[in-house]
């Protein structure tokens, strides 16, 4: 029973690092605009599928990955400009439903373009798995964890150490005051969607060599990322990252020790418990925005 634990933890941390990236995307957009972007998972799907297609066109993996991240960024920006921005000022629920609509539209589009069959990406650096603390770690998992940590680190450096990063935080804090110093909340909102799309795309591309990519992968990834963000209190980026790892580990332990099919259900039970127990999230979070 316990012999399984290291393996389950390693698996949990791997998938958790992906959830952490998606959760950060949620928190970023929510903080700046007050919108829960349920199209967040679709960014991962698009990143992965575009990358798979570019690879099939014989582009090198790194080039394909970079282009697909850039393309997803464009799509994130378009989502903001075409679907969200025109409805700014509407009731938050309306905006959330819009993002649901975008999510379904993107999934439908992906089904038409790529079909229902799964696509694969090769491991970034093929080779035998590593043995670590009594568990086995495929090389791609090292990439997933490493890239996630690097991206999260870069993002936090940007927010804490740079003036444009402070402008984004200021926008989440008090958008009115931002306008008075010349920061345009609309531009920051556009930047938030673009950056969140990039986070999603990176997550999707990195995890695909392990899980494969399908047109509907965004649903599961998006919901797990959402749970992670809620566990972190929605307004708190570091806590959302921790939430991502927590969700990954919970899911992995549930798969290993309970019936595998119930992992998803248990994740959502955790979400319900969090919402019931503490509206602000488990890890003390920022204030909830007034709806």
């Amino acid at each position, binding site marked *: 029973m316990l012999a399984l634990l290291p393996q389950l933890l390693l698996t949990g941390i791997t998938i958790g690092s992906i959830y952490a990236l998606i959760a950060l995307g949620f928190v970023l957009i929510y903080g700046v605009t007050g919108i829960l972007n349920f199209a967040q998972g679709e960014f991962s799907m698009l990143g992965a599928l575009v990358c798979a297609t570019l690879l099939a066109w014989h582009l090198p993996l790194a080039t394909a990955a970079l282009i697909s991240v850039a393309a997803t960024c464009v799509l994130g920006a378009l989502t903001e400009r075409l679907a969200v921005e025109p409805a700014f000022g509407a009731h938050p629920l309306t905006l959330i439903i819009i993002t649901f609509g975008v999510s379904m539209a993107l999934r439908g589009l992906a089904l038409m373009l790529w079909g229902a069959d799964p696509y694969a990406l090769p491991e970034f650096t093929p080779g035998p798995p590593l043995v670590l603390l009594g568990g086995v770690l495929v090389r791609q998992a090292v990439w997933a964890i490493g890239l996630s940590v690097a991206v999260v680190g870069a993002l936090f450096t940007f927010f804490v150490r740079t*003036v*444009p990063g*402070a*402008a984004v*935080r*200021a926008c989440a*804090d*008090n958008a*009115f*005051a*931002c*306008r*008075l*110093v*010349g*920061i*345009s909340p609309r531009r920051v909102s556009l930047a938030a969607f673009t950056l969140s799309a990039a986070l999603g795309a990176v997550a999707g591309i990195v995890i695909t060599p392990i899980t494969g990519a399908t047109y509907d992968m965004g649903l599961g990834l998006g919901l797990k990322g959402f749970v992670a963000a809620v566990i972190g209190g929605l307004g708190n980026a570091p806590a959302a990252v921790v939430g991502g790892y927590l969700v990954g580990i919970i899911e992995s332990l549930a798969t290993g020790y309970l019936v595998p099919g119930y992992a998803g259900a248990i994740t959502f039970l955790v979400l319900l418990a969090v919402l019931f127990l503490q509206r602000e999230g488990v890890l003390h979070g*920022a204030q909830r925005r007034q709806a």
Partner: protein
Amino acid sequence: MTASLLQVSGLVARRGSVEVLHGIDLEARPGEILAIIGPNGAGKSTLLGAIAGVYPARAGRITLAGRPITGLPAEAVVRLGISLVPERRQVWSGLTVREHLLLGGYHRYWRHRSEVRADVALPQGIFPRLLDLDRRLGGSLSGGEQQMLAIGRGLMARPRILLLDEPSLGLGPLIVREIVHALDRLRRAEGLTVILVEQNVKAAMATADRVAVMERGRIVLRGTPAELLAHPGIKAAYLGKGYEIAG
């Protein structure tokens, strides 16, 4: 007579669905302190907001040094040299004092990064307290400290006109005096124009070069503090009996 820097004519503005300003004419000259006084709900804050681009003008026009700025959003108006220090200060609770000041110069940041970083010394020179509070978060400051920070942030935009909405609200007399002195120095040193909305009429009268009295969305009276004090209605309504201008 000096040419006016800011010219407001026939300005009509709403706040939400309510028309608050019913045709305001106002001018501000370079380097002067213009106080706007009047009862609560007269539309003083809305007037400042409308000049700064926060509330769109329904009619009328606003020009800055001859250039029309009517209808520009707030984030554009600040670039042209009008900086609003809003009511209730509106500091960012989770950002440090230094970040406030740097962001105050945000519209210059992309082109003049090092200049903005160096300019932080300016508000710190005016309010040395800001230097002690450098790493503190906006939300953890006292009311007076937040007001200094809000003014410092407004100055970081390097405005030609500073709009101050109730800077003395909730502050002790010592801090008010410090702020008033600072404004006076800036006017002398940099030719800064200040438009000041004040509940504290005595403080406003003592600082201002000219005063405009607002009632129910209109300017009903204007003149120098001495002229207004000579006006029988004003003294009775705003200052009480026996008040003489200080100094």
